[in-house]
């Protein structure tokens, strides 16, 4: 019922991707991390701060006519590690995907420390952040070891 009620705020999509159970207020960040901005050509619906039994409040995003890949979704692990993802085909859920926050976040964001070796963008090795703990989320740069502040980190999406 809860889901049905929330979903009524936007119409069902025929084909595309629904990202549900995004922590309340994080939907814009999710779009940013997916590289979906104002210039995106596909229709995008966004619902923020809707009631959720599980989370209290949550955000939902529906991206039409685009099936997000697992690699794209794993980028969301930093901001919405428990989001539910459904690939929709002909109005039905064709696939359910989960987001995986592994032990390392590779080439998604770059370290926020201004004196880290990775601030030289010509250096060719990948940007690597280590996940020290998931709850609370504790992330450090693989190279310089500095703990990362999530709010700052999101500004460094690659």
């Amino acid at each position, binding site marked *: 019922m809860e889901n049905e009620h929330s979903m009524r705020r936007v119409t069902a999509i025929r084909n595309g991707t629904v990202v549900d159970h995004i922590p309340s207020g994080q939907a814009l960040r999710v779009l940013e991390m997916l590289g979906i901005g104002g210039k995106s050509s596909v229709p995008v619906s966004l619902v923020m701060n809707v009631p959720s039994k599980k989370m209290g409040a949550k955000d939902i995003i529906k991206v039409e006519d685009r099936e997000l890949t697992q690699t794209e979704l794993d980028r969301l692990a930093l901001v919405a590690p428990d989001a539910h993802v459904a690939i929709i085909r002909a109005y039905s859920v064709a696939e359910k995907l989960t987001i995986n926050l592994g032990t390392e976040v590779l080439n998604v964001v770059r*370290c926020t*420390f201004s*004196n*880290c*070796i*990775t*601030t*030289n963008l*010509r*250096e*060719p*090795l990948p940007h690597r952040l280590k996940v020290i703990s998931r709850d609370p989320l504790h992330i450090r*740069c*693989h*190279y*310089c*070891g*500095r*703990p990362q502040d999530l709010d700052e980190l999101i500004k460094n999406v690659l």
Partner: protein
Amino acid sequence: MAGLITMDDLTNEQIINILDDATRLLPVAKGKLFLPLLQGRILGNLFFEPSTRTRMSFETAMKRLGGEVVNLGDIKNSSVVKGETLFDTIQMVDGYTDIIAMRHPRQGAAQYAQDSARVPIMNGGDGAGHHPTQTMLDLFTIRQAHGTLEGLKVVLAGDLRYGRTVHSLSHALTRFGCELIFASPELLKMPTEIVSDLRENGANVIETEDLLGSINDADVVYMTRIQKERFADEDEYSRCAGAYRLHADNLADVKSEMIIMHPLPRVDEIHASVDSTRHACYFNQAFNGVVARMALICYLLGVTVPIDVESEGGAL
């Protein structure tokens, strides 16, 4: 091949084994014996920022064991000023050498170099990050003086915020159950993330601004230099730095076996009157940089240091 980027790359047992090797290599480090364990091996010295002791002691360590050294030389005359990436520089030196010692102004540079290289990298300081080879010689010096690393009371004083030596050393001492007293001006306190890391690892840490009130029951007092440029004005610098100086007169009530250490160079923080006391250990500490690095290079290159160095070594 793995190098030494942070002290986390070594277990306590490995640290002790390397310190044991270093102890046996002392006559070689002093030039009383010649033991060419590293003959045919080449060390690449890559110092992207100034260094006196670290660079020279790596070079001496290699040469005392019969090895060779190639230097990056003055950074102004190298391809780095032409915009070469660290990755490319490492690719080149990796091909020329068997092991690399590196200092770089950027934090994380040593790990980055290790990920780019096949030969072991020894981190000789990366920004305000780590300086584990300094930690090895510090541990060697402490064990030499006290016979153990376990359960000592160690005061670290001065600039604890920017001083990478004290960061690496605090982590290592915590692993050996030492009690740590951080004595510094508020502005130069040990970074909070380091203090919380240490406490999470079970460290007993006390933070204070009172150096002289902390030294009387200490086993080790580790001084560091407070730099003028860290302060907004000269008056504040003089007021703060003045409270973190040791004079022989301050040592009347300290433990007889207490040692005073300093990574050097010192400016005013240890008065020359301390040099002639039994507590002064900083010049011996600087010498120990050679022997600790000799043992470390052998360990990283998989070269066994003989149990009986005296009978294996030849006269010079």
